[in-house]
């Protein structure tokens, strides 16, 4: 088909894409990377105990926050599509406990792991089903299923949750290393790259992002919104389940509440990673960087001798500062602020006078 152009697009204009659409995301990602470098440099130079860890010691620190990163990757998939999953923490607990209990029943541990991951995906599918079938807020649905998964985990775990898994298992998902690099980090790298490819380079990822931007328009464009969302929740459940397995391996024990403390950090990572909580905008690379940024920040502060309370609060403060920075980066916001001030100054008296009349 060809038609007479009424007027033509400017030639060569398509190169300008990165300058407009993705610019903010790029700036954000670069800023995160820079911040990470600055942070590591600071700890290395200013904290002797951190320096004395050596390369392998520093890399080993990762073992303590990569599961948060895994949950965050899954969470990011859901958030990109404009939803949220609050049940990921409970899901981690559940999958860890399930794996451990199955193993305790005599199942091969790897088989148990696969089954637990399957159950986690199923749990995610339940979330997705409730959200898409009844067309209701995922915030609320997952708020509810969070309790349910937690209860199931407690019930499965019983009084004395299993521990002391086979060596091969603990090595791979727990504390083993290849040279100075923890096995966990390698597994995480694989998952992270896969998640990044999924979102940035596949048809499914494209659908997901478009759904996040405008759900109705996606439907009208032939994207199967329900199915895509369902899979997003499955992905989130699966990655949360994987995190649960990692956690169990690292601690060499399963516990029914082990994931509870992972939810908020994971959401923090997602937001800090630059994913718009309303969906659409954001990059997996940002989430990955934010995992390391927050992780090293917390661990570094602890090694510096700060209390874990301080570390947690610093996390909150960093989050607020970054968000303020983000608003500031958004040059529209600046213009808006100027406009607002003008409004305020000139319109103040009137506004004050004004309710009644």
């Amino acid at each position: 088909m060809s038609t007479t152009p009424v007027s033509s697009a400017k030639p060569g204009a398509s190169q300008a894409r990165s300058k407009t659409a993705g610019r903010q995301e790029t700036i954000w990602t670069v800023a995160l990377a820079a911040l990470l470098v600055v942070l590591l440099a600071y700890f290395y130079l200013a904290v002797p105990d951190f320096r004395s860890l050596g390369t392998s010691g520093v890399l080993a620190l990762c073992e303590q926050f990569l599961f948060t990163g895994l949950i965050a990757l899954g969470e990011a998939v859901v958030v990109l599509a404009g939803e949220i999953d609050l049940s990921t923490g409970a899901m981690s607990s559940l999958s860890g406990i399930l794996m451990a209990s199955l193993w305790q029943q005599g199942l091969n541990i790897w088989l148990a792991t696969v089954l637990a991951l399957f159950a986690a995906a199923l749990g995610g599918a339940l979330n997705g089903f409730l959200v898409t079938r009844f067309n209701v807020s995922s915030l609320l649905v997952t708020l509810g299923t969070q309790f349910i998964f937690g209860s199931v985990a407690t019930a499965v775990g019983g009084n004395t949750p299993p521990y002391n898994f086979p060596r091969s298992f603990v090595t791979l998902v727990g504390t083993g290393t290849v040279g100075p690099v923890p096995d966990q980090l390698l597994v995480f790298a694989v998952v992270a790259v896969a998640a990044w490819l999924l979102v940035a380079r596949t048809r499914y990822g494209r659908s997901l992002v478009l759904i996040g931007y405008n759900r109705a328009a996606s439907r009208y464009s032939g994207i199967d919104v329900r199915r895509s969302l369902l899979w997003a929740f499955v992905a989130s459940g699966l990655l949360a389940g994987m995190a649960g397995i990692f956690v169990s391996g690292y601690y060499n024990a399963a516990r029914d509440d082990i994931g509870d403390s992972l939810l908020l950090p994971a959401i923090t990572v997602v937001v800090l990673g630059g994913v718009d909580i309303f969906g659409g905008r954001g990059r997996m690379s940002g989430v990955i960087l934010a995992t390391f940024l927050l992780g090293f920040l917390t661990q570094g502060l602890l090694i510096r001798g700060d209390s874990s309370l301080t570390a947690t609060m610093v996390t909150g403060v960093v989050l607020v500062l970054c968000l303020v920075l983000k608003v500031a980066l958004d040059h529209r916001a600046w213009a808006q602020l100027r406009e607002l001030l003008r409004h305020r100054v000139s319109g103040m008296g009137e506004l004050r006078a004004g309710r009644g009349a």
Partner: protein
Amino acid sequence: VAMGATSAVTATPSPASAAGLATIKVAMVPKLLGLPVFEANQKGALSVVHELGISFKFTAPATASAEGQVSIFNSLIAQHYNVITLSADDPTVPVPVLQKAMKAGIQVISYDSDVAQSARDFFIQDTAYNTIAQGVIDAAVKFAGPNADVAIMSSTPDATIQLAWIGAMKSYIAARYPHLKIVTIGYGQSNQATSLSQAEGIIHSYPNVKAILPIDGAAVVGTAQAVAALHESGKIGVFGIGDPLPNQKYFADGSMQGLFLWNEVGQGKLTMLMARLAYEGAHGAPECTAKTPPAHPSPSQWCGIRTNYGRAQYFNGAAVGLPGTYSIAAKANKVSGATRNTVIFSKPLEFTRSNYKKYDF
């Protein structure tokens, strides 16, 4: 009460005070910050670290979490602490990291709540499980008779010590009071509001219950409060395991009959002494093998305590102002709950309506 105390307490001895002893870094890591039991431990520890030549740090997760403790242990290893003392939030989760610490030459001592034996050198048990369980049951029977219905209030279904206590109570009941019946176990989730609702629920749902036995700090207060609120004071007896201070009101108004507990402040002191001795033992000081160690040892007479199964060892608490001699269990003891390398701190104290005012913890 001072608002604004810091959450990680650090105390460094002046070199002069620690005569002849190298200063060592000891960390005390309870389950979480802000729990009175652990604050009392800390108080005891702080009172003796000076003379023991200990550079002391008190740090814990903000909310009870085994993962939070693991992060802290990791950072303590990186900071080259000499001894880590901990009250384990979970017996198994910190095992790998504590083993890493031991491998790095750090002495690990658990107190209050033990970890797996493979992950610590010593455990300071509060008190023998059977002794404290018997105390509670005997007091309850004295109040309600040997045929009564009683209920237990615990924190969570998987709280290790509480499970042990419940077990000890059950075996004691089976042996001594076969007609005493435990009708239910309520779980207050370690917080007072839930404990209150649970206890209220129990009182309503089990009208025949004559005594409630709360064995967790929050459950104790919640139960007494439920009894008071429902005007059952004196009709339903409350006997439990907990500190007297938060319950003064209920002792006074008759909603609370008896509590059992060890001396938490003393336990903190003992933990620090143990830390010093374990360090000495690992660094060449002679073992404490004498049947009766010197009554008032000076630092130069101190001996170290080694991980050495199978041989009874003794040491004297006088160095930190504790009365008596402590023995280190050589092997596990089902009845008391002791395991290898366990020091049982003390017999429980009993708090009653007539003596509760004497205690400030």
